[in-house]
């Protein structure tokens, strides 16, 4: 579904991504793991058009989207839940959700009902402004807003950031449901244990390169991953 080939991203003279290649297949959750500065967020910025690659190619459903601009991705079927949630703070919950369907013509009431069924808390708060929501509610709103665009591929940037463990569990449960309802998910996450338990496959990034990738259950048992990302000491 999504195919990244040798993508190089530079910020000025600094190369952030040294030619990364990976793919995401229809209907799976793929997670990108890595330490701070490994290039995870840069990868997502590149995939949502915020930073164009200097070379390489991005294919989405066989179409070249390397040069596509940020605002054109939503219409293509790739919706981005940005890092730090970035909901519209002065719009109500409902207005925020409606903004998610901006590129779509016609009625959104059906999608709204669906979102309120997925996130019942948002229904209770639909007339409150975004700024007054708690962090977890804002994250749900950000995911709901992206889903309103009916994406085929959902990009999630650090959905667990700054949230209480219980809320993280709820949100990861919902991400699983999103996959089960047919939306492919690319998940960038620091919380490797959570992400790998949920994901089908994972890639580990180091210093702007993809170090290795495997099925999530293999990565969970991989010594390198266990040592660095799951915080377990390796014996022997």
């Amino acid at each position, binding site marked *: 579904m999504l195919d990244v080939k040798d993508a190089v991203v530079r910020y000025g003279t600094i190369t952030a991504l040294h030619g990364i290649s990976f793919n995401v297949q229809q209907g799976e959750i793929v997670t990108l793991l890595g330490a701070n500065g490994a290039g995870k967020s840069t990868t997502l910025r590149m995939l949502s058009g915020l930073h164009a690659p200097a070379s390489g190619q991005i294919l989405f459903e066989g179409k070249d989207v390397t040069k596509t601009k940020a605002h054109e*991705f939503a219409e293509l079927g790739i919706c981005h839940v940005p890092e730090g949630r970035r909901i519209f703070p*002065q719009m109500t919950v409902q207005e925020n959700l*409606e*903004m998610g369907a*901006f590129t779509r013509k016609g009625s959104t009431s059906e999608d709204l009902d669906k979102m309120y069924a997925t996130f019942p808390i948002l229904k209770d708060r639909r007339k409150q*402004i975004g*700024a007054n929501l708690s962090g977890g509610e804002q994250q749900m709103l950000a995911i709901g807003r992206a889903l309103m*665009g009916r994406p085929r591929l959902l990009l999630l940037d650090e959905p667990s950031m700054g949230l209480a463990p219980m809320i993280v569990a709820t949100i990861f449960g919902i991400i699983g449901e999103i996959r089960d309802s047919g939306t492919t998910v690319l998940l960038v996450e620091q919380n490797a244990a959570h992400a790998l338990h949920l994901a089908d496959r994972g890639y580990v990034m180091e210093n702007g390169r993809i170090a290795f990738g495997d099925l999530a259950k293999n990565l969970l048992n991989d010594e390198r991953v266990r040592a660095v990302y799951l915080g377990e000491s390796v014996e022997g």
Partner: protein
Amino acid sequence: MRVWLTKAIVRRLLITQSIVAVIELMTGPAGSNSQPVYGFSHSFGESSSFFGLFRTQRWVTFFFVGLICWGVASFWISQGSRVRKSVHDALAFPRAATQKRPVRWGAMAVLLGFAIILPHVETAPFWQAAMVEQIAVYVLLAIGLNVVVGFAGLLDLGYVAFYAIGAYTTAWVTGALPTPALFHHALNPFFAIPVAIAIVMIAGIILGAPTLRLRGDYLAIVTLGFGEIITIFANNLYGITGGSLGSNQIPHPSIHLGPIKYIWGLAPVPYYYLALGFVVLFIIIFSLLERSRVGRAWTAIREDEVAAESVGINPLKYKVMAFAIGAASAGFAGVLTASQLIFIFPASFTLQFSINILVLVILGGMGSIAGVVFGAILIQTVTEFLFHSPPSGYQPQDLYIYLGALLVAMMIFRPSGLIPSKRRQREIRLSEAEHEGHLDEVLTGDDT
């Protein structure tokens, strides 16, 4: 074989041609008491140039204009449903729970009634002139700048340029500039209104498209430069604009339509009603826009441009739209000023003017149409009052001391304006709270 010349086509052709004939008469030479049919007999026969291409009689020009109108109308009828649908889509965005009463019709009607009888209550010539030249014009400019600053959140310090372009366009199409007019036959200033609005909107696009990639302070500097460039052009392009002396041959608007014959003369009151009509029109259009899909896109860009892009809004497109739409009312204000005062000169379109309008918008309440209208009326009335009957020791240049003090006081006690827009008020409170640093829950991420 299909019959090409159907009845509907012929009917449309006749309708457009008769509309054009009426316009032809209206813009033609005026009649007089001694020769009442002068306009009728001469307007068709007079020779004119066809958009500067070749000389011909006026009726030929207008016949071709009519043909073009007919073509547009036919295209609209065959393709119009698509256009109508997209316009409808653009205006129909807020679907569910937003505001229940978008406009307080009762209050609006009372205020409008008051505005209509005002010239009969206040009959002092000074105030009647001030109502048009100082208040109505500033209200028009303030509601237009409010679209740019208040709705889209773009700081424009060169807004007066659009006002100047509107005024100079009027002078141009009415044949009052040294440069040849757009049409050979000078247009009635009445018909300068759509031309001027179209030209300032195009100017808005020309300025906006390359510069609106800039943000915040950078944009303010570029717009400042644009305002200065327009003034300097007006001052120095002697052969085109008349230089620093400006232009002083602009006719008053008039209507000659069958039995209706009316000339806007030197008296300000008829201009007041003309301005009032357009103020109401612009207020209706701008408030519809604010509540539309376009308005929602502006709000989204203002609140978080990255998030707006992530939901599929093209920020550049909507910012350019804000520039063009906001410029429209300044274009009309330019026509109003030029055709009422009959002279314009570059010195009246200064940076100070842009800043004055911005002050009105900020005092009234950015993003709130009621606020900026109220702010403009209040400040301009007080200014005129001080000018008309100054307290002892008051000098006209002292005004800016008081305005400055008022701005400072307002920033302390009412930072979001006299009649703030609800959303903008919360935005300002939010950013204050963020600066004070106790809003951890609200922080919506940074740019890393």
